[in-house]
């Protein structure tokens, strides 16, 4: 198991390097220009000067190399400095966003809390709702509950968030005035009242996202439960005289969770990636919104670093999912 994990980890390094290179080259091909947002009243010569100041003109490979050094050598030093108060990174050039002229990582770290609050909570809520629905629909397959659950989850799956989002805003913000339509990222939770406010502003984006997550996960859970309910060992368990709840919630559930847990793990990178559309609709300025802004501003270092972080997360959680699978299922051995 350990050698397997290490081998996979080492293998992921060339993979990630390759991915970063591919993303970088794609970005290089982009016809966009970081000066696109500068108004027309600024003359071209000035724009050209600004471009030069950002180092846009350098050869692509030089830029890539610099970026690699910054991400893999200098940023870790910055992280160490921040944690232990050392000063390894002093005076070294970090990855600087073209648009904000500030270190990309600082902004990313600034964005993580709101993304985690909203998308993370939605994920947890989604899981908590999805699992019982999945279990019960499978146990009572073709019952009214199952049919209704199937219908609702499928609807949830098929309605895009840019439809549900504005709909919720009109109903709950404009008509009823219960929840704010604009998420306050500066809100600090330090007592019950502020927690209540935080919950109020979270509830709509969380609802929109959780609907989709629930829809997806409950389908998986149901399918997996159905697979296992028909297995012979279930009959054995019953023959031992175990109660139904033990049979279903211990024997069957434990087996059914194996694939579902890995599906859940594989979904985690998307939490960090933010939900681009939902964040946009509710002005939760999280990572997804950041990526969108930078993409439209042609902020190459920002987009590059952010997509790379996503890729790292995806690769990492793929690995975690595989290892989890091995841990949960004693039959699987990786070596």
């Amino acid at each position, binding site marked *: 198991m350990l050698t397997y994990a290490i081998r996979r980890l080492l293998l992921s390094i060339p993979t990630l390097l390759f991915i970063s290179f591919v993303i970088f080259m794609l970005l290089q091909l982009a016809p966009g220009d970081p000066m696109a947002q500068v108004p027309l009243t600024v003359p071209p010569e000035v724009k050209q000067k600004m471009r030069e100041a950002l180092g846009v003109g350098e050869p692509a490979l030089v830029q890539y190399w610099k970026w690699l050094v910054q991400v893999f050598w200098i940023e870790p030093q910055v992280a160490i400095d921040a944690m232990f108060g050392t000063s390894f990174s002093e005076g070294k050039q970090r990855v600087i966003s073209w648009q904000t002229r500030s270190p990309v990582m600082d902004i990313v770290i600034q964005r993580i809390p709101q993304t985690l609050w909203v998308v993370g909570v939605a994920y947890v809520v989604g899981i908590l709702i999805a699992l019982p629905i999945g279990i019960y629909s499978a146990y009572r397959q073709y019952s009214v509950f199952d049919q209704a659950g199937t219908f609702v989850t499928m609807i949830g799956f098929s309605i895009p968030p840019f439809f549900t989002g504005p709909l919720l805003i009109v109903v709950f913000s404009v008509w009823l005035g219960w929840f704010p339509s604009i998420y306050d990222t500066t809100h600090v939770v330090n007592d019950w009242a502020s927690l209540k406010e935080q919950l109020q502003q979270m509830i709509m984006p969380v609802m929109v996202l959780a609907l989709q997550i629930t829809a997806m996960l409950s389908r998986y859970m149901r399918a997996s439960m159905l697979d296992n309910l028909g297995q012979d060992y279930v*009959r054995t368990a019953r023959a031992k005289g175990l109660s139904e709840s033990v049979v279903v919630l211990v024997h069957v559930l434990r087996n059914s969770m194996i694939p579902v847990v890995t599906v859940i793990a594989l979904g985690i990178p998307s939490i960090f990636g933010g939900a681009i559309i939902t964040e946009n609709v509710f002005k939760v300025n999280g990572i997804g919104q950041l990526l969108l802004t930078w993409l439209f501003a042609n902020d190459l270092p920002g987009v590059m670093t952010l997509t790379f972080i996503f890729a790292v997360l995806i690769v990492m959680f793929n690995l975690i999912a595989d290892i989890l699978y091995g841990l949960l299922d*004693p039959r699987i051995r990786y*070596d």
Partner: protein
Amino acid sequence: MLDAAPTEKNTGPVAKIEKLRVEFQTKDGPVIGVEDVSFEVGAGETVCVVGESGSGKSVSSLSLMRLVEYGGGEISGGRLLFDRRNGEQIDLTTVDQNKMRGIRGDEIGMIFQEPMTALNPVFTVGRQLTEGLRVHLGLNKDDAKERALDLLRQVRIPEPERRLDQYPHELSGGMRQRVVIAMALACKPRLLIADEPTTALDVTIQAEILALMDRLKRETGTAVMFITHDMAVVAQMADRVVVMFRGNKVEEGTVEEIFENPQHPYTQALLAAVPKLGEMTGKDLPEPMRLVGQEDHVPQPIVGTNETLLKVSNLTTRFAVKGGFFRRTVANVHAVEDLSFTINKGQTLSLVGESGCGKSTAGRSILRLVEPQSGQVEFDCCDVMSLDNKALHKVRQDMQMIFQDPFASLNPQMSLIDQVSEPMLNYGTASGSELHDRVANLFDRVELPRSFMRRYPHELSGGQRQRIAIARALALNPKLIVADEAVSALDVSVQAQVINLMMELQAELGLGYLFISHDMAVVERVSHHVGVMYLGRIVELGPRRAVFENPQHAYTKALMSAVPIADPRKRKSEKDLNFKPIPSPIHPVGYQAGPSEYKEVSPGHKVLISDSGY
């Protein structure tokens, strides 16, 4: 006298099934699983329920447990009377599931058909064993563990302490089945239902398990309902026998009555179809079986020729085991090791041996369906080992294979006509209407109606499917057919038909067979020569008669003794059994396997004298 144990006081039946009827609601309307079955099981008695696949054996037993309901069945008639431990007699059909839960696992134990899947893969053996104990006997964790250990010792599992912390997949099939038995016995049930507990197992393990159950019955006085379709097992185990046929009980009697004087035609036919070890004693040549209803058809011995068709020498096949950081080969499975034999035209050589000893690999290596490490395979025309892909393609026209599992060896998505004509299309030996005629002829040959040509494999029974496989192997008029466990998966009755068919074809067409099987009785029936394999080597090779009547190698002897004989008067006792577990065929890279050396005890009868691992 009066305060004797209740089991002895009450000598009446423990369980009594009366006019049981079970229906299943399916999408195509109700299906009857069991139509009308009545019998009883007494304390300390083994009642064997026999009948072909689908006759309702499992359904009857599941009804007793009231588990049919979870599979969509419904007990629509009859009574299931059961004597509880406290003397109360209840009708299980009216008990509610809550109360039933208390009876299941406590007073009725059940051993299921499939040892491989009956255990929950993600819990340890210990946990699964103790679960029932804690529910029914209210034991605490440690006591339950003690009791579980005790049970494992009773079923004679080696190293019981270690087993408790292992997962089911870490045990061999035989051990798993013993765990399932231990589980069923956990609470000392009054009734033990065993649903084909040995069908999936090897002869040697089967023998052990049968002996084990027999001893337990004798020691605890449990009533046993034993379900099987193997008549040899019945002869070995039963006190009384119930014969079922298409959802009905057709005959019931003591084991001797049934075997010696069967009344119902079905029982007669069934018994006639069972090959019995020793039937061919005294005969040199194999001959087809005599089946009920075909008495007019006098079986003719099959002579064959003495021309060599296939000569295999020093064949070695290994599979690499990869591991470590760089996925290099760290060890090899020595599946076939220094194998030599010859097959004559029109004759059959059988390879027998335990599961995993390399029989299939040997067969596949000859066709180069797996690549052998070294050795020569000389076939009729040429040296198979030295051929390139194109030439090999050509040679395969003369060498065909019938695979172990008729369910698996046919493509479920192709119609039968397409499957049978595929080899001819591949070699371009026929096309158009000629092709169609050829296929039709092949169907006639294997006695399948031509109307089946448009069907799909799932629309046939197992025996019919195996005949399709045979027809496909015959399509190219091969000279050699490798029949890998061609009949093992079939019901006895069907097995008999397929064996006869194969032998008829041999007589007619002069085919050479390499017949691979672990069923000694079948092998005795069909072979001219026999090779006994153990751990990749042939330990004994010779004419069938010599090997069966005068086994020389220790392993051959052990194997012979393990085979149950379909005769209740020739029961084996547990004492006769003495098996060693098979050593692992996996050896590190660079391991040098010694050559096989033989001693010729009589003409053609050779026995391995170098180390075989046994």
